[in-house]
């Protein structure tokens, strides 16, 4: 039983050690600015289309689903409120992070994994560069900067999607929708909606880099590392969102 647990416990410890080193490197020279900007472009700008699409349709679907339920209570004009609260608190952060996990945790794991199996990581160390400082820290910071921004964009596009559905098919006027959407939001909702992607960003980048740097067994190993990174990062997002929501819900009510 203990042997069975040893692997996962060791992995958790290794991820935390990697995170500690990556954060420690933020304050050490040299800082690889150009690598960070390249990663911000790949993660941030590169993920924009997919994040906008998922945000838009999740908002639109939410408006369609909720309007039916709300109509039962004669509160169809509150659709804006439901859409904005679900998106800002939960769906925006979770869906955006899942999209970025699928795109970038896999990208990081496969890129670093390929470098590992072709001895590029060893070469980097042998040639005087710390792979964590050069590869992990820029990816971690780039994800931490861009994921909250992507979430804000997804939230807005999602509410806009809900608005289009509301005015075109539900017979709700624009001012009705936007007023209820706006008034429903509290500062704690915004905080929750930003704390979540910020936290998820570390799960995505560190899990992606961890599996990449620990790849063994050639190209097959790279494939395995990529799959594991996406699965673990995605599951972790759901686990973390539960605990963060619990903290915020417990605080407000």
């Amino acid at each position, binding site marked *: 039983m203990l042997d069975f647990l040893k692997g996962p416990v060791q992995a958790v410890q290794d991820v935390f050690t990697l995170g500690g080193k990556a954060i420690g490197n933020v304050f050490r020279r040299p800082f690889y600015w150009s690598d960070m900007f390249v990663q911000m472009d790949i993660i941030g700008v590169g993920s924009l289309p997919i994040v906008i699409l998922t945000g838009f349709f999740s908002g639109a679907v939410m408006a369609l689903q909720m309007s039916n339920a709300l109509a039962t209570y004669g509160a169809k004009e509150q659709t804006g409120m439901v859409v904005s609260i679900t998106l800002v608190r939960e769906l925006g952060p979770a869906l955006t992070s899942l999209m970025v996990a699928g795109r970038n945790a896999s990208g990081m794991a496969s890129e670093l994994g390929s470098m590992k199996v072709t001895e590029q990581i060893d070469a980097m*160390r042998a040639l*005087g560069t710390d792979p964590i400082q050069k590869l992990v820290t820029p990816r971690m910071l780039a994800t931490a900067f861009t994921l909250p921004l992507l979430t804000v964009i997804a939230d807005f596009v999602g509410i806009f999607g809900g608005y289009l559905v509301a005015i075109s098919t539900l017979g709700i006027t624009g001012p009705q929708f936007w007023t209820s959407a706006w008034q429903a939001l509290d500062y704690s909702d915004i905080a929750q909606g930003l704390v979540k992607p910020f936290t998820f960003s570390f799960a995505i980048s560190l899990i992606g880099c961890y599996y990449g740097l620990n790849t063994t067994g050639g190209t097959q190993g790279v494939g395995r590392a990529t799959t594991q990174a996406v699965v673990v990062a995605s599951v972790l997002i759901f686990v973390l969102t539960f605990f963060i929501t619990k903290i915020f819900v417990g605080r407000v009510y």
Partner: protein
Amino acid sequence: MAERQPILEFENVTVSFAGTPALDDISFLVREGDSRIILGAAGSGKSVLMKTALGLIKPDSGRVKVFGDDTSNLSERQWFAVRRKLGVLFQEGGLFDSLTIEENVAYPLENNRVNKPSAREIHERARKALEFVELGGTLDKVPSELSGGMRRRVGIARAMVTNPVLTLYDSPTAGLDPITSYTIVALIAKERRVHNTTTMIATHRYQDGHFLANYTYNDATGRIEPVNRDGGDAGTRFWVLRSGRFAFRGSQSELEQTDDPYVRNFMKPRTDSDGKQI
């Protein structure tokens, strides 16, 4: 004659992976100007020995001394200073596939935090190193545009661009055809001679060792020539590794006289389909 400076010393070094020793109680001393040919089958510990010498793998027990200094307690950052004096060619070349050939060769100079040369000097040294390996026209290419042998030569250029005291070659001819292998080994002989580098080569090909023990680069003629048998190759020794232990250590003539079937296996003449020796 003054005793030559110790370059690399292993004292009872053991390295294990999942309980299986990859290096088992290995001890040796390599002095300035020495050449060591490390023969061994796949999995015999050649690469692990190289990586342990570079501090990429930490030994479970024993001590590794580089330039006479014990490295047991060095942090990764302190190792960087030591590694600046070491050159390495990895088994697959270890080139960064997202960088150009010039950027690859310039990488150790660009990342020298202590005394980084000027951009002009870096470019010049990278160009010269590439010309040394006869790849002067590939500066703007990326590794995927080059053949396997060319990539290995770029790896040699990158290993020598910092003028290292000790150069480690991990299976420099693995997977290459005989002609390309000859080019690579001739380049190693040239590098060893021109820069007077202490050299360690892990290989499974006896021919590589035979060549390096018997031939040298003549600076004056620019050709590879047989060494003067009256002491010209005194520094070239053969080691044979078997399951992480030395199965043999000695000169080429001693190697050729050994009765150990494992060791003799490396010296069997190999023939092609026409029966010619390769």
